[in-house]
C-alpha cells in the first residue's frame, strides 16, 4: 500500500511538472458588482434628433463598462424590480433646451426613501451631452466608491481606413471617433502621452518602422529619434513621460530608452534575441518586456529595473507570452498568450503566479487596463473581424465597442487629475 501511495504522489508531482498551461473556466464573475437603477430621463419638447442615443442608454453603458456596477434599466421607478435586483441607488434626470444650450440634470437617489443623494447639472451644446453624461457617471462612481471612474477617458486604437491602418481616437465607449493619422501608409502601435495631449505611434511611411509624435491640437506628425534607423512600439513612462521602445538592431530587436523632449536615446536591453513590447510599471521605476532569448518563436515576459538591470523572467506557463501591461495598482499584469495557435488574454501576479485566463473565443490581443484597473480593453476577432472589446478585470461582461471595419490595438488614455 505504502508503495502505491508514494507512486501516486510521484505521478501527481510528475504530471504537475509536465503541465504547460493553466486554463480555468470563469463562467461567473468573481468580483461582485453593485446593482444600480437607471431610469429613463425626461426630455422636454425640443428637437433632440441630433442626440445619438437617449441619456439613459449612455449612462447605463457607462455603469456596465465601469466594472463596478450592473445597470438595472427601467422606464420608470419600480420599487419591486429595484428591490429584487438589490439596487440600493438609482439615477435619473431631465434634459431640456434653453437659449440653444442643452441642460442635463442628473440625480442620484436612494431606492428605498426616493431621496436625492446628490444632483448634478451640466450645460452644453447638444453634441456635448455625451460628455456631460460621462461626467455624471464618474460623479456617481465617486459618490458611491470614493474613487475616480474612467467614463470621461478616451481610447486610441488602430482602424483600417481605405485598406490602410490609421490611428483613431474616441471616447472610451467607442463613440465620437476621430481619425488622427491621415498619411497613406501603415500607422500602428499607438500610445498616449502622459497628459493625453499627444499620441506616439509607429509608421512605415518612410519604408521602415519609425516612431512619430502627433500633437492632438495640430495636424503634423513629427518623427522622433531620427538617429535610429528602425524603431517601433513606444511606451510612455507614467511619471516623467520618457519612452521605451523596440529598435531593430544588428540581430533581433532591442529595448531602448528615449526622451521625446531632448531626442536623446540609448539602448537598455541588448541581446541577440528579440526584445519587444516594453511597458512601464505604474511608478515608472521598472518595466515589463517580452524576449525570446529562451527559445526562438517563444517569447516570454520579463521584468527589469528602469536602467535595464536586474532582469527577471515573469511568465513560466505556456510557450508564447507577449504584450504584457502592468495594472495601475502594480499588483498584476495582463498579457496575451498563444495556445493551439490562438491568442488569449491572461492576467497573473507580477511574480507570474496566479494565472487567470480571461478570454476563450477567437484571437484576443493587446490588453490595456482602464486607468482604475477595474476593466481591460482588448481586440478580438471572435465576431469574424477584429474589433475592440471591454471586459471586467476577471474576464466577465466582455462588451464590443466597435462594430464596423477592422479595429485593433486599443490603448486607454490616462486619467486627467481631479474629481470630475
Amino acid at each position, binding site marked *: 500500500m505504502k508503495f502505491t501511495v508514494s507512486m501516486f504522489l510521484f505521478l501527481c508531482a510528475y504530471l504537475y511538472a509536465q503541465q504547460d498551461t493553466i486554463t480555468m473556466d470563469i463562467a461567473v464573475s468573481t468580483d461582485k458588482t453593485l446593482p444600480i437603477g437607471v431610469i429613463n430621463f425626461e426630455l422636454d419638447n425640443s428637437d433632440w434628433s441630433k442626440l445619438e442615443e437617449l441619456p439613459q442608454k449612455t449612462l447605463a453603458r457607462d455603469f456596465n463598462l465601469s466594472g463596478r456596477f450592473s445597470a438595472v434599466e427601467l422606464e420608470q421607478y419600480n420599487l419591486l424590480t429595484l428591490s429584487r435586483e438589490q439596487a440600493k441607488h438609482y439615477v435619473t434626470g431631465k434634459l431640456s433646451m434653453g437659449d440653444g444650450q442643452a441642460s442635463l440634470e442628473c440625480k442620484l437617489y436612494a431606492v428605498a426613501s426616493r431621496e436625492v443623494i446628490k444632483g448634478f447639472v451640466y450645460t452644453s451644446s447638444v453634441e456635448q451631452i455625451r460628455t456631460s453624461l460621462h461626467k455624471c457617471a464618474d460623479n456617481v462612481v465617486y459618490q458611491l466608491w470614493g474613487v475616480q471612474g474612467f467614463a470621461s477617458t478616451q481610447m486610441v486604437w488602430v482602424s483600417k481606413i481605405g485598406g490602410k*491602418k490609421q490611428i483613431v481616437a474616441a471616447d472610451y465607449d467607442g463613440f465620437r471617433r476621430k481619425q488622427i493619422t491621415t498619411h497613406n501608409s*501603415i500607422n*500602428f*502601435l499607438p500610445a498616449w502621452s502622459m497628459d493625453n495631449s499627444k499620441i506616439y505611434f509607429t509608421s*512605415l511611411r518612410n*519604408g*521602415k*518602422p519609425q516612431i512619430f509624435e502627433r500633437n492632438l491640437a495640430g495636424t503634423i506628425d513629427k518623427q522622433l529619434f531620427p538617429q535610429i534607423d*528602425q524603431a*517601433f*512600439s513606444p511606451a510612455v513612462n507614467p511619471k516623467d513621460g520618457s519612452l521605451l521602445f*523596440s529598435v*531593430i538592431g*544588428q*540581430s*533581433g*530587436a532591442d529595448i531602448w530608452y528615449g526622451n521625446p523632449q531632448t531626442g536623446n536615446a540609448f539602448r537598455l536591453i541588448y541581446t541577440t534575441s*528579440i*526584445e*519587444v*513590447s516594453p511597458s512601464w510599471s505604474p511608478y515608472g521605476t521598472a518595466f515589463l518586456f*517580452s524576449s*525570446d532569448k529562451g527559445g*526562438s*518563436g*517563444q*517569447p516570454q515576459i520579463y521584468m527589469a529595473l528602469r536602467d535595464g538591470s536586474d532582469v527577471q523572467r515573469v511568465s513560466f506557463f505556456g510557450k*508564447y507570452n*507577449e*504584450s504584457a501591461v502592468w495594472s495601475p495598482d502594480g499588483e498584476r499584469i495582463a498579457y*496575451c498568450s*498563444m495556445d493551439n*495557435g490562438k*491568442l488569449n488574454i491572461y492576467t497573473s501576479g507580477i511574480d507570474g503566479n496566479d494565472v487567470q485566463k480571461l478570454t476563450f473565443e477567437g484571437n484576443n*490581443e*493587446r490588453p490595456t487596463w482602464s486607468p482604475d484597473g477595474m476593466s481591460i480593453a482588448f481586440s478580438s476577432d471572435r465576431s469574424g473581424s477584429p474589433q475592440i472589446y471591454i471586459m471586467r478585470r476577471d474576464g466577465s461582461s466582455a462588451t464590443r465597442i466597435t462594430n464596423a471595419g477592422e479595429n*485593433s*490595438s486599443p490603448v486607454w488614455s490616462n486619467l486627467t487629475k481631479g474629481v470630475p
Partner: protein
Amino acid sequence: MKTIVPVLAVGAALVLFACAKKPQPVEVEPPPPEEEYVEPPPPPPPRQEAPKEDPLEAERRRLEALMNKIMSDDVYFEFDQSTLTAAAKDILTEVGDILKRETRFSVLTEGHADERGTESYNMGLGTRRADAVVRFLINYGVSSGRLTKVSYGEEQPKAAGQTEEAYAQNRRAAFRVKINN
C-alpha cells in the same frame, strides 16, 4: 461632268496629299516634333537607332532581368522560425551568385511574418528572418555594405486570408534591388 471629275479627283488628291503630309507624322508619333523633319525617309531612323541602342539597351535589359529575378525570389520560412530551409538556401545561392557578379547591385532585404502572433513580436520575427538572409549572403561572399534590411512584421502580407497557404506565402523575406553608380 467628265472634266469636273478629274479636277475634283486631282483636287481631292491634292487635299489628301496636303492633309496626309501634315497629320501623318502626328498620328504616327507620340513624341512629336523631331521626326517631322526626318519625315521623308521614315523607315531608316529606327533601323539606325536600334543597332546604336543595342549594347546599352541590352545591358539595361539584362540588369533589369537580373533585378527582377532577385526581386521575385522570395525566401519562405516555417511558422515562428527564422532558420533557412534547403529551398531557401538554394534561392539564396542563386541570389548570392548574381550579387557577386553584379557588384553595382545593393539589396534591401525585407523580413515579413504571417498574421498569427502579436504585431510586436512579428516585427521582431521579420527582423530575424531578414537577418538570417543577410547573414547567409555575407557568408556567401557579398560585402555587407551592399546589404540592408527592414522588418515589416505582419503589416504587408503577400496573400490575403486565414489559410495555411496564405500564411506560408506571408512568412517570407523579399528583396528590393538598387543599382549604384
